[in-house]
């Protein structure tokens, strides 16, 4: 502060620009701190305490809840595998189908608007309703799928009474909801790609498949990376679809992380243990997402 700053640097020194930035940030940051950061810290605090609805003593018990959750066979052998399986299957299937749909839509044809409207619907409808639809369609007595299978003479499958059929329906529903999201984002990017590489591929007599794998896909890679990252984070916390379709059943065999935490906190009414599960899950996805973010960033510059 000894020498007078020159004009160009003045507002840096006075912090006028920083003040403006902080004021712009103030409303969002306030809401974030009050309703997300503070509650998460309080939840972290609760996870170290003996805190159930029936005995809210809130005595400090250290890491006992963490030890319980991390050694709970159902958490390790059912919940975690289910969560990651749902994440991997849902993201990869909806990415594949979304890519195909994007290519399908990337043409001029009669009724294109109508098809796009129909494809958009699953993404706009509440996941709760989507899950209700699927639950009804796959109803083992009166559902349309059951009727169709019966008509084929294959007998009946009690879809929602067994682990893997239930799990397949959960994955199917999630893919149904999220394929349109991939399709529309990839379609927008397909349309903004430069024409020249495609013309070059045509001149080199590359077929559609080779053009796709050698020209389109490499150019789409950055946006695919970002989509997969965002979708994986969201798939990890899936709740609505599983809750409505199976409620985690039969016999807690389709529970995913969010359902497990909900069960501990609001069915077993053990807020301490629920909070510990919540923190463990948040930790897991933060590590996974961090690794994925690194991979995506290495693959393409998306730090924008």
């Amino acid at each position, binding site marked *: 502060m000894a020498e007078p700053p020159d004009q160009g640097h003045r507002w840096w020194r006075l912090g006028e620009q920083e003040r403006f930035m902080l004021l712009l940030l103030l409303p969002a940051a306030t809401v974030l701190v009050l309703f997300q950061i*503070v509650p998460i810290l309080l*939840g972290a605090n609760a996870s170290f305490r003996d805190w159930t609805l029936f005995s809210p003593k809130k005595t400090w018990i250290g890491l006992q809840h963490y030890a319980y959750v991390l050694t709970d066979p159902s958490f390790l052998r059912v919940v975690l595998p289910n969560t990651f399986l749902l994440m991997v299957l849902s993201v990869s299937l909806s990415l594949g189908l979304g890519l195909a749909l994007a290519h399908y839509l990337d043409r001029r044809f009669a009724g294109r608007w109508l098809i796009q409207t129909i494809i958009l619907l699953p993404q706009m*409808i509440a996941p709760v309703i989507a899950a209700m639809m699927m639950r009804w369609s796959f109803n083992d007595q009166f559902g349309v799928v059951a009727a169709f299978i019966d008509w084929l003479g294959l007998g009946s499958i009690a879809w929602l009474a067994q682990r893997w059929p239930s799990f397949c329906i959960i994955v199917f529903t999630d893919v149904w909801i999220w394929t*349109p999201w991939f399709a529309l984002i990839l379609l927008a990017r397909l*349309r903004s790609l430069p024409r020249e590489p*495609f013309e070059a591929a045509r001149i080199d007599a590359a077929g559609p498949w080779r053009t796709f794998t050698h020209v389109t896909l490499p150019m789409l890679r950055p946006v695919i990376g970002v989509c997969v990252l965002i979708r994986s984070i969201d798939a990890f916390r899936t*709740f609505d679809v599983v809750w409505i379709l199976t409620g985690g059943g039969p016999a807690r065999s389709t529970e995913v992380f969010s359902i497990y*935490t909900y069960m501990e906190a609001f069915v077993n009414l053990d807020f301490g243990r629920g909070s510990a599960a919540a923190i463990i899950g948040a930790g897991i996805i*933060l590590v996974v997402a961090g690794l994925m973010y690194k991979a995506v960033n290495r693959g393409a510059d998306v730090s924008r």
Partner: protein
Amino acid sequence: MSAPALPVETPRGWAGALAPGGRRALLLLATLAILLLFLGPIVILVVTSLRPGWAVYYIYRGTDFTLQNFVEVLATESVTRAFVNSFVLATLATLFSIAVTVSSGYMLSRFTGPIPRTWFGTIYLFRTVPYISWVLPLYLVCYELGIYDSYAGILLPHIAVHICFFSWIMKGFFDGIDPSMEYAALIDGCSRWGAFLRVALPSAVPAIAALGILSWLYTWNEFLFALILTGHNTALITVTMAQFVTELGTQWNLMSAMAVLAMGPAILITVFAQSYVIRGLRI
């Protein structure tokens, strides 16, 4: 027309093996599959909602249709109240969360340095935290504060839900607006706030409207926060529906009617504001 859709006079590879007619048949088949897959479940739900209670069990035959289910659902007081609650909540939460995030998005777009970097890190971090890890302690907080099952107890968290996501999206909107107009305004003696509010903001309004529509729909469709943070007084439409599914497990005609009513806004928005929605869906 778009880049990859070059006029394909001589398709090669597997597509080239098909005659032009075969190619057309393949596309027609794809169209049918898409219709069946994406429209099928919705159609079944709508048909079920129009069936009398005894006829849903025979969904694949019979021609009896009725509007009685809708009448019955709309005559249920808890359902109508849930619709009103959801409508008010979605509208208020959208207005507030857009208002709160527009300036932070502008900040992210126009400045560099430690403050935007820190905010970016915060956004990435808290965008990743699963909802359950956050709504569970929120429940404890609302309970201790005595605002559980009140309108404040559900509105305030719903404003916070999208802070991270919307800040990020808003940055994208402002990135698409050339800042040279703002520099010109600053040189002409306009204040920084003037440059933001009177120069940059009006150009961003269409994009913000698009985000507003999506935000409204997200809140209308939201389930987990509603399930945990609302009780009898403030029941929302998604939770009321879920209760129908688990409690009235057999009355599919009524549940379908309610679901059809609840997806009304989604359908209206998809049909009439599709370009806005697609603009808002960017990442």
